[in-house]
């Protein structure tokens, strides 16, 4: 250990560029891996208003077929949504809602007209997603049923609309239609892609397209019970599909089943199309590919750097072999020495990642509304840091193995007489 540290210090003095680039390169790649991990944890770790992420499932679309080459896919009618998804075993609650935010034009008494993120929901939405009500109330099932023009807005939106957070009972325009504000909720981060919003209004739970009655403007979010078998939920949904389809058969139509509802991870990692079955393994494959690239690219660079550091030490390796060092020991010494360098770089990278998580808001800011930072603990926890250290280890093994093996492969004479050696 001590001699390895001495060797590293010596390298830093005699080959400062290579040594520092190695450390900086490691630090940079560990930093990037941490940022990716943090962004990942933002999509997967539960936080308000999506505290139930681990229990959520989503059914965004249906795919209606009317023969071989005639199909239409998109959001559902209220009736189809209820037929397919309400009253399933092990599902505690469902919400008919917009799974995506859409921009709306809003105006309050302050006179400013601006664009805000809108989400239309039913009343159950407020039970599945844990928003914090600051004043007023949420809209009720009756209001949703009746299509009453009411709205719940975020605090920041209320201030912008009315110049004050005290907005209850005031009137605002949502896409030029007057709505009464009944509730004000705390600001939420758009990183909560399914629960957040600036303006919430009742969705038309009876929506149905004139052209195709099965289709409409509804998507469904499902809250399953703790530890529920998600495949069992899907099997129930599949048999609901079969029932619906036997009724549709007389019209020559059927609804193609695409394995919905989807788990949170799948739905938030891959793009889900309305007319294909998303591949569960794609989500994992995308993750694996990202991490592999994040590790492989720097590993190749570090490897060539280590290779050139080793070239200056070939004759040293020859001498060590002459005095009884085995090939295995040469390899383990080089890998071990490199591990120290990688860990030094890794610690710098983790420190940089920590500072980034603490002070850089850009990652969490969005165009509309107020940026809400996720809690620091969500970004920086033992898992992120453990994973970063594991990445160090993998980086080390990937980058050191080849140069170490090359160094150990030479016979002692070849090594001792190597021309790159600088004697004395």
């Amino acid at each position, binding site marked *: 250990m001590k*001699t390895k540290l*001495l*060797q590293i210090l*010596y*390298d830093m003095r*005699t080959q400062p560029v290579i040594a520092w680039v190695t450390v900086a390169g490691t630090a940079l790649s560990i930093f990037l891996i941490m940022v990716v991990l943090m962004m990942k944890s933002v999509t997967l770790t539960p936080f308000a208003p999506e505290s139930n992420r681990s229990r959520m499932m989503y059914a965004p679309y249906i795919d209606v077929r009317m023969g071989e080459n005639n199909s239409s896919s998109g959001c559902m009618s209220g009736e189809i949504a209820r037929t397919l998804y309400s009253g399933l075993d092990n599902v505690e609650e469902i919400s008919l809602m917009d799974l995506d935010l859409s921009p709306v034009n809003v105006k309050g008494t302050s006179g400013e007209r601006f664009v805000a993120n809108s989400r239309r929901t039913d009343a159950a939405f407020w039970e599945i997603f844990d928003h914090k009500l600051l004043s007023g109330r949420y809209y009720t099932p009756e209001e949703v049923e009746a299509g009453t023009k009411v709205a719940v807005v975020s605090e920041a939106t209320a201030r912008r609309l009315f110049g004050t957070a005290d907005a209850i009972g005031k009137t605002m325009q949502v896409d030029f239609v007057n709505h009464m504000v009944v509730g004000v909720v705390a600001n939420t981060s758009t990183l909560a892609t399914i629960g957040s919003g600036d303006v919430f209004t009742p969705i038309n739970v009876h929506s149905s397209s004139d052209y195709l009655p099965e289709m409409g403007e509804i998507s469904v979010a499902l809250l399953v019970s703790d530890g529920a078998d998600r495949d069992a939920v899907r099997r129930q949904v599949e048999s609901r599909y079969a029932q619906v389809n036997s009724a549709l058969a007389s019209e020559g139509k059927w609804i193609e089943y695409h394995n919905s509802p989807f788990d949170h991870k799948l739905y938030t990692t891959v793009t889900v199309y309305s007319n294909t079955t998303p591949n569960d393994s794609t989500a994992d494959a995308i993750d694996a590919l990202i991490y592999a690239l994040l590790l492989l690219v720097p590993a190749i660079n570090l490897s060539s750097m280590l290779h050139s550091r080793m070239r200056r030490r070939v*004759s*040293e390796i*020859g*001498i*060590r*072999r*002459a*005095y*009884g*060092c*085995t*090939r*295995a*020991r040469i390899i383990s010494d080089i890998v071990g020495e490199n591990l120290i360098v990688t860990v030094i770089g890794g610690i710098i990278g983790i420190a940089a990642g920590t500072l980034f998580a603490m002070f850089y808001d850009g990652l969490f800011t969005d165009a509309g509304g107020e940026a809400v930072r996720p809690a620091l603990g969500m970004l920086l926890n033992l898992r992120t840091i453990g994973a970063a250290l594991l990445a160090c280890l993998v980086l080390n093994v990937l980058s050191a193995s080849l140069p170490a093996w090359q160094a150990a492969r030479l*016979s*002692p*004479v070849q090594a*001792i007489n190597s021309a790159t*050696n*600088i*004697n*004395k």
Partner: protein
Amino acid sequence: MAIIELNNIGKVFRTREIETTALENVNLSVEKGEFLSIMGPSGCGKSTLLNIMGLLDNPTSGTVRITDTDCASLSDTARARFRNSNLGFVFQSFHLIPSLNVAANIELPLDYRSDSGQRQERVREVAERLGIAHRLKHLPSQLSGGQCQRVAIARAIVGRPSIILADEPTGNLDSRMGNEVMDLLHELNRRDGITVVMVTHNEEQARRTDRIVRFFDGRIIN
């Protein structure tokens, strides 16, 4: 009793284009406690032979026996162990490890042993014997050539080997320092009974040794 026995040693170097025969049919045995010098013109195969004796290289044909061990049958790891406990090496260009100080350079062979007791004492003992005890904390780059070769000799004997193989140990030294190194090698041979095989171009040095073997074109000629 022969401590080193070479039988019908041949060595051919093959590169992509050419084959060089470096040694042909060499038979040589070295007695225990002998101080042998090897002479011959440049390129005649002296270093090649010394490397084969030192188990640093394999002969193309023939057998090597050292302290009654048939070295051909040893695995790579076993050879490393064997070198560690039986052989010491001294090279023309010292071959000290530049990043290690004198003490760590001397200690090197002990790093590859399992018994690790009293290493510091051993290092200090040989350093004092070779007159470099006051330089233990220096890096090789801070030493003169003569001092470097003393460190290399200290490294060669710290593990108490029975054989020292020295390839032109005075080749890079002026005559005064060269004589000092030769005196040291003779002392190690006489007082400690270490067998020494030395390659040299210096007739005067060779004449001080027990026996001279002369090479020409990969063969022994006397």
